């Protein structure tokens, strides 16, 4: 059914916009992630470019209605090429008072807020701390929202009324209210509802048909209610974005990693053995690929993080491509085994889906502060390459690249993604299978003159000889060894030369890696250098700056360590370097120490991505700063409207 073609009782102007940002927010039990995902899929199929930002609490179900229990999903969809989920929502859908309170600081005056009036009652207001003099007050009644366009809807009532025919319990009926809200948004932005209807039928299956029917009824009720009551006075259209020819699907970062691991097994004709331990936000990779058992991929949920990496490395020794995935705290536990992978020179892919830290930190929020952990975080000299994904879809290509390096150079490789990439999504123009990169794997089979540490003269990679091959029996381990034979050696000169040899091998990857993504003028007053998930925000800000006539270029690293060999030459063409990072200047330190160049650091560690506007402001500011200057990360932080930097002092 294309409800958009229904005869309409009220005449609506349909305005065309080139982009919209919606944020769905509610209690973590209100189904906001599902609502957001459905809106995303529908907009993707409609042909918009889009970017999403799920934002959920660490607790599975914090006490219902409280501020910590608020879950959000932001989507930006556009008729043009976009790079981020957007700085500020045009519409906030607040399912309860807590959702309103948590999200209001991000909403600019004049924007639209849809509230579920049924939840603005004393009990819920108290839980959201809308309290004055020990009594609850209602922000819908005190004119505090007068600068916004507030749309009041009793979603509970609509949910109950619309689902009456299906014999649901009152609780079940109420759970359909997110689909009422979704239906309203579908009308407002003139989206087809049939994709969500189809999904609901598949999701509930024939056994729970009445739940599918009820949710569909709620969805339609929201759609028609918006239409017939003239709730919004107008309707908007966001035409499809001009996009590259091809077949598309929407993809989240963790999903793209999982797909790439199946692709790696196929492309290398070598089994992939994935071992992981549950950890947020990496677990979805394990969930997904555990379904790919017919793709040459085995999965093992280990007893702990250490066992996971050790099993993966054991599998690599036995001739599989060993892979493990985790987040910061888990990566810390795996460190010793990664050192062994360096020493035994076996391929190993270590995926770090970064989250806020240190320690447990902010498990569901994003950060990119594990870079130095991956570059240096092992005992002694244990060089390890680091590849970083810069968008959800880019996770696919970067995973394949990391596997390529691991097997070509016989080394552990880190792939850095983060919570934002892992759970964020974007349309992905699917590659042709024949265009995917080759991953050459060669196992030694000739016993003639076999030495386990014989090397390729060009890459310095040692041979890969797997158990079961007659005549190649050999022993490897963590003790220092003589090159060639691999026999234990405690000789001081040998150790010195082996440490240098392993380091040279990894340094060589600087000449055989993905070059930095450079955009804009090839010389000039400023280049913004980044890595990882900041690509979208940086691109948006740089494009805005260029539109203002500012001469700004962008240089983004997909290979972070070793730094690509061309990087020094690229950076030398600019008078200023600005490095925005969601950490306290980790790439800034690497670039300064490796290339001996000064750079302005710009840092933000709030568990959420940079906004385009704050980056644009910084670009404008740095352009006025001295050429070849430097700003220390601690001196240069992103401002936040919500947080004030305070220090509690003893004796206060």
């Amino acid at each position: 059914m294309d409800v958009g073609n229904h005869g309409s009782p009220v005449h609506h102007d349909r305005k065309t916009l080139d982009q919209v940002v919606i944020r769905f927010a509610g209690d973590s039990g209100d189904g906001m992630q599902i609502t957001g995902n459905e809106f995303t899929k529908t907009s993707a199929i409609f042909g918009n470019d889009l970017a999403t930002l799920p934002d959920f609490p660490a607790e599975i179900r914090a006490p219902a209605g409280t501020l910590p229990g608020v879950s959000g999903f932001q989507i930006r969809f556009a008729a043009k090429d976009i790079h981020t989920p957007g700085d500020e929502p045009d519409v906030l859908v607040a399912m309860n008072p807590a959702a309103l309170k948590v999200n209001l600081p991000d909403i600019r005056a004049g924007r639209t807020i849809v509230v579920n009036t049924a939840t603005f009652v004393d009990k819920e207001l108290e839980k959201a701390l809308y309290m004055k003099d020990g009594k609850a007050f209602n922000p819908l009644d005190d004119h505090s929202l007068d600068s916004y366009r507030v749309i009041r809807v009793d979603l509970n009532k609509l949910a109950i009324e619309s689902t009456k025919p299906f014999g649901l319990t009152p609780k079940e009926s109420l759970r359909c209210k997110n689909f009422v809200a979704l239906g309203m948004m579908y009308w407002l932005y003139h989206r087809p509802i049939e994709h969500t209807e189809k999904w609901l039928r598949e999701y509930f299956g024939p056994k729970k048909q009445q739940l599918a029917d009820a949710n569909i009824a709620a969805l339609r009720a929201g759609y028609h209610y918006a239409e017939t009551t003239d709730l919004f006075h107008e309707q908007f259209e966001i035409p499809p974005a001009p996009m590259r020819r091809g077949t598309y699907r929407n993809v989240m970062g963790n999903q793209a990693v999982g797909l790439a691991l199946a692709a790696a097994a196929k492309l290398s004709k070598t089994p992939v053995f994935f071992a992981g331990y549950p950890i947020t936000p990496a677990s979805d990779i394990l969930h997904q690929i555990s379904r790919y058992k017919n793709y040459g991929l085995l999965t093992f949920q280990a007893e702990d993080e250490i066992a996971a990496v050790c099993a993966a490395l054991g599998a690599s020794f036995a001739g599989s491509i060993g892979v493990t995935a985790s987040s910061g705290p888990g990566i810390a536990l795996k460190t010793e085994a990664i050192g062994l992978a360096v020493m035994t020179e076996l391929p190993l892919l270590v995926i770090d889906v970064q989250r806020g830290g240190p320690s447990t930190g902010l498990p569901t929020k994003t950060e990119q502060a594990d870079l130095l952990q991956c570059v240096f975080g092992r005992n002694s000299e244990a060089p390890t390459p680091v590849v970083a994904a810069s968008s959800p879809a880019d996770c696919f290509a970067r995973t394949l690249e990391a596997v390529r390096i691991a097997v070509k150079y016989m080394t552990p490789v880190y792939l850095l993604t983060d919570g934002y990439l892992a759970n964020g999504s974007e349309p992905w123009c699917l590659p042709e299978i024949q265009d995917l990169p080759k991953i050459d794997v060669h196992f030694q089979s000739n016993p003639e003159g076999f030495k386990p540490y014989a090397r390729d003269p060009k890459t310095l990679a040692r041979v890969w000889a797997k158990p079961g091959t007659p005549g190649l029996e050999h022993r490897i381990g963590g003790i220092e060894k003589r090159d060639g034979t691999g026999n234990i050696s405690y000789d001081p000169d040998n150790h010195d030369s082996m440490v240098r040899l392993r380091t040279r091998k990894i340094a060589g990857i600087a000449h055989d890696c993905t070059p930095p993504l450079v955009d804009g003028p090839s010389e000039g007053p400023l280049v913004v250098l980044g890595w990882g998930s900041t690509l979208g925000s940086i691109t948006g800000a740089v494009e805005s700056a260029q539109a203002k006539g500012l001469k700004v270029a962008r240089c983004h690293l997909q290979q972070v360590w070793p730094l690509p060999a061309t990087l020094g030459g690229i950076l030398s063409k600019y008078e200023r370097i600005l490095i925005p990072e969601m950490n306290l200047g980790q790439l800034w330190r690497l670039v300064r120490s490796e290339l001996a160049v000064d750079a302005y650091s710009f840092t933000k560690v709030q568990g959420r991505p940079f906004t385009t506007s704050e980056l644009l402001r910084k670009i404008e500011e740095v352009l006025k700063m001295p050429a070849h200057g430097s700003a220390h990360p601690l001196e240069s932080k992103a401002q936040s409207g919500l947080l004030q930097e305070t220090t509690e002092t003893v004796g206060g």
Partner: protein
Amino acid sequence: MTPPNATLTKNDFKTDQEVRWCPGCGDYAILNAVQSVFPTLGIPKEKFVVVSGIGCSSRLPYYVNTYGFHSIHGRAPAFATGIKCANPELSVWIGTGDGDALSIGGNHLIHAMRRNLDVKVLMFNNRIYGLTKGQFSPTSEVGKITKSTPFGVVDQPFNPIHLALGAGATFVARSVDVMSKHLTSVLQRAAAHRGFAFVEIYQNCNIFNDGAFDHLVEKEIRDDHLVELEHGKPLKFGKAKDKGVRLRGYAPEIVDLKTTPTDDLIVWDEHEPSSALAFLIASMPERAMPQPIGVFRAVDKPTFDGELRKQANEVTATHGDGDLKDLLYSGDLWNVE
């Protein structure tokens, strides 16, 4: 390179590496037993993998001429899991010690046991940390004076057999380093077992814990301190086999068969599904009662690596060999012309 089908000998499993254990160490006897057993198993030389962690015992792979992986402290069972799952045709052996297996690596050991991973674990138990020069281990006795316990150990020790039984190991056995015939036969039994085999080997550290097992190995007294478990046979011990073990309630007790002839001695059944009785006899206090050696338990259960493969094969049989294009081009797709 050994030609296929050639008869392997002990020498085929010796490496050119100089063995660096202390002279007189019990590890030599264990190495000897391993090198004697491997050629008798009918497994091609290249299909063995010896995995180890860290410690004196963990040097084992360097001295056995097949594939070997000397890994990191305590993690050998985890490496072995990856190796065995990646290639189930390999015969995977783990050399480990009481510190490596029960202290830093306890978690991996118990989980490999509960999964019934098809690997063979030789745990050299010398009740001391040797390579780090003499600290107490999780099997050291209470009160023992060591480098790190100058006033005596206050920890209660693990009983490794209890741990293995409790974690669900499907094959649990014990032997002694210098009892070469017994050790060889236990290793052969372990090799023949399909599933996790745990073999505790009492091993003398002549530098830091010399004589720990003298009562079990000295000719004059050993028969009074050891009882050999043999499937289907009653538990009898003593030089003249004139003493036996029976149960009184939940407690094993010694019977002097000369004065009290009896027909209610425990008759050993290693296939008994319940490990309760094995647990009871493993509890017999050392010195006051004989220490059982031999096979405590040998039961048949599906192996982890076997089930993992089986599941993957079943999925492949049902859905066919995965096609990459089908996978990437799945879900909600749309075309841009």
